[in-house]
């Protein structure tokens, strides 16, 4: 610890950090622009100037930029020094000379760092009388709006987009006071992380275009802490509502998970909540579809649930509570995972490894500290985007280790970049096609899934002779395997990443072998699994049989009712099998929020709440259970949490009449009692009766407007605000105004800090964990509980078979996910159906790029345009995974290609 003196007061601080972040950690309000906690300092904006004195006696001192000064022991500083204050005011005044008179029509207004800093420095009157500079804007695609006049040249956007996220198409152009931040030409921003520009930009140059289409100021939104539902990483988000519509998703800082950023699928994929495709009311389809009121629905259900034998099909995108309520309703023996047997088997395998405790499943934050990364069979940018960003940081930061030796501090961004030049850590990617991370990998390995597994086994065998070695591997592959093994062995913090994207069990086994071979007695190797959906891990932990067994049960046992929970089964298996499954039953009860193929076949359809209207808990790929909270109370009373519907149905079963229904008790506590593997999920957040000074935590900022007018058109007497019985959050602006506990932070705000930069005030130290610890609880223990056993199911060499292709599911960040596709922006960015084959295969088919070929796969036939991918191994054909029009395929799949006639 070092002692520094700020304005004659002593503080104990960590040495080595920069003075700016130290001052912010200590709670001082020091203005800044170009510094960003995740990106370090460059000292460009001159806004954070303070006085530094030689020693205690020195009264003159000198002005320094606090972001460029290292904290040392016995530093004498002054923030309040008149000349330092004058300097900061002057800098703002200069920045404002060209800033347009736009705040009223600027989407940043009310959550604008520039506004906050201008107020903070006290600049309030424009003395500059000369004309303002102006720029033409660019079209930047469906996500980001561009208004270049507002720029203050802090360079944060390009530093994030290019240096941090590896984007290529945003840059700075022109010279001197004409610098321009944009693309070389109008066009969509290609990066998957472009949405973060809206948060990184301290003013309104880059703003959220989806918010613009239903614009609401930050102070007018009802917000709640939530968890992203669009991939398995479980990034923390803040979801905001106004007038009964979900309006915006922003990042919610979690030091252990997503830090300061989220991907575009998470940020812009929320619009399904407002979709016209929502199921609006219960539907009983007897002869003709008829909307049902609650009473007739209850009557119908009471008959079905008491007289019929029922099975329940759960969902990997429903919360633990919902899945557990279904399990309680149908009973353990009638409860099935709503995923294919292949997927269930992959998940069982992953769980086995995670439970064995020989390897460590790292958080996203821990991932950033890896030095050698080996990715087997995953296109991270498309299947788990934020993990790709974390890997990028890990690889980028490796050469920074040398910086300490020549005393360059870790926050000195420009110096570190000069030092690193083109140098980076080692990254190996084995994947059939090119991926965006390939540019960082030494030599990408484009192999078929089985070959990836064989390579993995070979690497593991080099690392530990107990691990079985594959036979018949080429000399070249063996050399490669040895090289990878050597690099991994040398690494201080190696990381293996694999996942379920290719539906190949051998890859997961091989990756497990590598990680086990790397793990010593002291130190465990990092092994990350990418799983298919937001709660795939939680569902797998419930340990239920898969859909295949549900079908078997329907055939063999006397079952006539199937309850499907938040699941479109046509995304889980072949169309034919699912048709068969759904046709065998007498009653099909579907609970979901969107209409889809499965819900169209339902005899009883029940609308449920989306993540924004419900509370729930999900488990991410790392095994971290996280809770999301209800954002708003929907206008439509039918939008109720699946678990509350299901819990009521359970009561009918027990003969309770609809009039005597009781509120569901604490489902999670019951779940932990029945399934001890979930120990800890019931204490993720403060209980519903938690109060601070007798008050709840308000979901609305204290300047929430329009309370007495927003519903006045319906009735001038305001209704009582909805109450939240399930959490310590309230739906109003009344409540505790101080800092809420970390799991209950509905929005970031601090006095004088209206923008998202106020997160500094919520952290124990800048860039560290939230006060009171980052929310979420890891469910897998680190204790080794089983013998170290190497897997030994090495697949044979992949030989392309004539006339039959192995069909690869190629994930796409925009398009492959079921819910996000309902956002118009995401839909626009999603690919059109295509089939990727290599040039030689195309030649054999007599097809050229964009020719239509017929793909016959599991009794279905598709006509798809050819996309030639040079790198794809022979005998493989890739199609975009689960994009609309390409669902109903049982994976892994083989198919026959023929040149189509158009």
């Amino acid at each position: 610890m070092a002692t520094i003196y700020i304005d004659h007061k002593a503080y104990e601080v960590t040495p080595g950090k920069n003075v700016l972040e130290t001052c912010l950690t200590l709670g001082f309000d020091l203005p800044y622009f170009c510094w960003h906690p995740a990106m370090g300092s460059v000292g460009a904006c001159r806004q954070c100037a303070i006085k530094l004195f030689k020693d205690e006696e020195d009264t003159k001192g000198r002005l320094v930029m606090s972001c460029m000064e290292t904290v040392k022991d016995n530093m004498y500083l002054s923030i309040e020094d008149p000349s330092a204050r004058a300097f900061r005011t002057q800098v703002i005044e200069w920045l404002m000379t060209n800033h347009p008179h736009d705040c009223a029509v600027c989407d940043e207004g009310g959550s604008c760092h520039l506004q906050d800093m201008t107020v903070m420095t006290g600049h309030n009157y424009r003395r500059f009388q000369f004309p303002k500079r102006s720029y033409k804007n660019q079209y930047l695609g469906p996500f980001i709006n561009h208004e270049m006049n507002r720029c203050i040249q802090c360079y944060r956007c390009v530093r994030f987009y290019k240096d941090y996220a590896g984007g290529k198409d945003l840059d700075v152009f022109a010279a001197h006071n004409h610098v321009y931040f944009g693309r070389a030409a109008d066009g969509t921003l290609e990066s998957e992380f472009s949405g973060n520009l809206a948060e990184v930009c301290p003013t309104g140059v880059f703003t959220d275009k989806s918010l613009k289409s239903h614009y609401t100021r930050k102070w007018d939104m009802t917000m709640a802490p939530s968890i992203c539902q669009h991939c398995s990483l479980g990034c923390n988000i803040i979801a905001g509502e106004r007038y009964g519509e979900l309006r915006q998703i922003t990042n919610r800082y979690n030091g252990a998970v997503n830090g300061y950023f989220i991907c575009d699928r998470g940020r812009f994929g929320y619009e399904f909540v407002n979709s016209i495709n929502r199921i609006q009311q219960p539907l009983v389809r007897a002869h003709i579809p008829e909307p049902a009121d609650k009473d007739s629905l209850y009557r119908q259900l009471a008959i079905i649930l008491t007289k019929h034998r029922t099975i329940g099909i759960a969902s990997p995108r429903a919360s633990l509570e919902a899945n557990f309520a279904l399990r309680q309703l149908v009973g353990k023996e009638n409860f099935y995972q709503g995923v294919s047997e292949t997927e269930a088997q992959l998940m069982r395998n992953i769980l086995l490894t995670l439970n064995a405790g020989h390897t460590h499943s790292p958080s996203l934050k821990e991932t950033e500290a890896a030095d050698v990364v080996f990715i087997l069979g995953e296109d991270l940018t498309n299947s788990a985007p934020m993990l790709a960003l974390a890997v990028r940081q890990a690889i980028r930061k490796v050469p920074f280790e040398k910086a300490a030796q020549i005393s360059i501090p870790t926050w000195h961004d420009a110096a570190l970049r000069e030092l690193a030049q083109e140098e980076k850590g080692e990254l190996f990617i084995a994947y059939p096609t090119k991926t965006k991370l390939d540019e960082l990998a030494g030599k990408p390995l484009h192999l078929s899934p089985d070959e990836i597994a064989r390579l993995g086994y070979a690497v593991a065998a080099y690392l530990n002779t107990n691990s079985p070695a594959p036979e018949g591997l080429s000399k070249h592959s063996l050399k490669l395997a040895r090289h990878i093994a050597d690099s991994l062995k040398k690494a201080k913090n190696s990381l293996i990443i694999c996942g379920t994207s290719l539906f190949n069990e051998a890859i997961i086994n091989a990756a497990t072998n590598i990680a086990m071979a790397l793990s010593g007695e002291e130190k465990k190797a990092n092994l990350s699994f990418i799983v298919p959906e937001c709660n795939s891990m939680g569902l797998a932990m419930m340990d239920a049989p898969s859909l295949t067994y549900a079908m078997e049960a329907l055939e063999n046992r006397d079952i006539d009712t199937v309850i499907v929970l938040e699941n479109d089964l046509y995304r889980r298996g072949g169309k034919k099998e699912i048709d068969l499954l759904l046709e065998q039953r007498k009653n099909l009860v579907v609970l979901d929020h969107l209409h889809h193929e499965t819900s169209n076949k339902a005899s009883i359809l029940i609308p449920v709440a989306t993540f924004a209207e419900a509370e729930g808990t999900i488990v991410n790929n790392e095994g971290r259970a996280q809770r999301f909270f209800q954002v708003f109370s929907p206008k439509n009373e039918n939008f109720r949490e699946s678990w509350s519907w299901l819990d009521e149905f359970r009561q009918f079963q027990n003969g309770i009449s609809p009039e005597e229904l009781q509120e569901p008790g604490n489902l999670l506590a019951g779940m932990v009692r029945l399934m001890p593997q979930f120990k800890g999920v019931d204490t993720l957040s403060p209980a519903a009766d938690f109060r601070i000074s007798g008050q709840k935590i308000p979901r609305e900022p204290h300047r929430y407007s329009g309370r007495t007018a927003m519903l006045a058109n319906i009735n001038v007497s305001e209704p009582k605000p909805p109450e939240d019985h399930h959490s310590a959050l309230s739906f109003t602006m009344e409540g505790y105004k101080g800092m809420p506990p970390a799991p209950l932070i509905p929005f970031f705000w601090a006095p004088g800090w209206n923008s998202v930069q106020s997160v500094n005030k919520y952290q124990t130290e800048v860039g560290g964990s939230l006060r009171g610890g980052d929310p979420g609880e890891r469910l897998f223990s680190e204790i080794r509980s089983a013998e170290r056993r190497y897997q030994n199911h090495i697949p044979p060499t992949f030989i392309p078979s004539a006339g039959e292709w192995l069909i690869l599911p190629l994930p796409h960040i925009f398009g492959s996910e079921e819910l996000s596709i309902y956002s118009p922006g995401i839909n626009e960015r999603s690919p059109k159906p295509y089939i990727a084959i290599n040039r030689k295969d195309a030649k054999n088919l007599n097809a050229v790029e964009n020719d239509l070929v017929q793909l016959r796969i599991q009794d279905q036939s598709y006509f798809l345009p050819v996309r030639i991918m040079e790198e794809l191994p022979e005998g493989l054909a890739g199609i975009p995974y689960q994009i609309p029009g390409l669902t109903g395929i049982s994976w892994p799949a083989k198919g026959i290609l023929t040149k189509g006639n158009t």
Partner: protein
Amino acid sequence: MISLLRTIGLTFMHMFRKRETIQYPEEKISLHPRWRGRIVLTRDPDMGERCVGCYLCAAACPVDCISLQATEDENGRRYPEFFRINFSRCIFCGYCEEACPTYAIQLIPDFEMAEYNRQDMVYEKEDLLIDSQGKYPGYNYYKIAGLDAGVKEKGTGENEDPPIDIHSLLP
């Protein structure tokens, strides 16, 4: 006794004084132009809606009786999709007028808004918007703001330089 008679006398004298009470509604009081009465939404000199839907009036309102939703036309000009004031809650404090950056919302010297039915005191945009510039003639926000919303092109606003040619290297 004397003081009693004096008081009666003074009261009697009041009969010959000028009357303070006026015969409202036949007779109207003349109100100062800055009198804070009925709230209106005004138009700019080109008869475009002045309100840009910035939500500042709603935020400033101490009784939260203003609610609106901003939207945009095809040129990117922002305007309120709906604008509602619940006059049964309004306290005529004038904070909304003070907060308005575009002179759109103005309080005018008119107070005759009484209704038998409270629901009728909820005013929508159609009830609020007038075809006049109100107290502040000549101001058109979009000519001063930096962005192009179909009112003026980039760089042609008041006190604004033409757009920068980013390909130029001239100082």
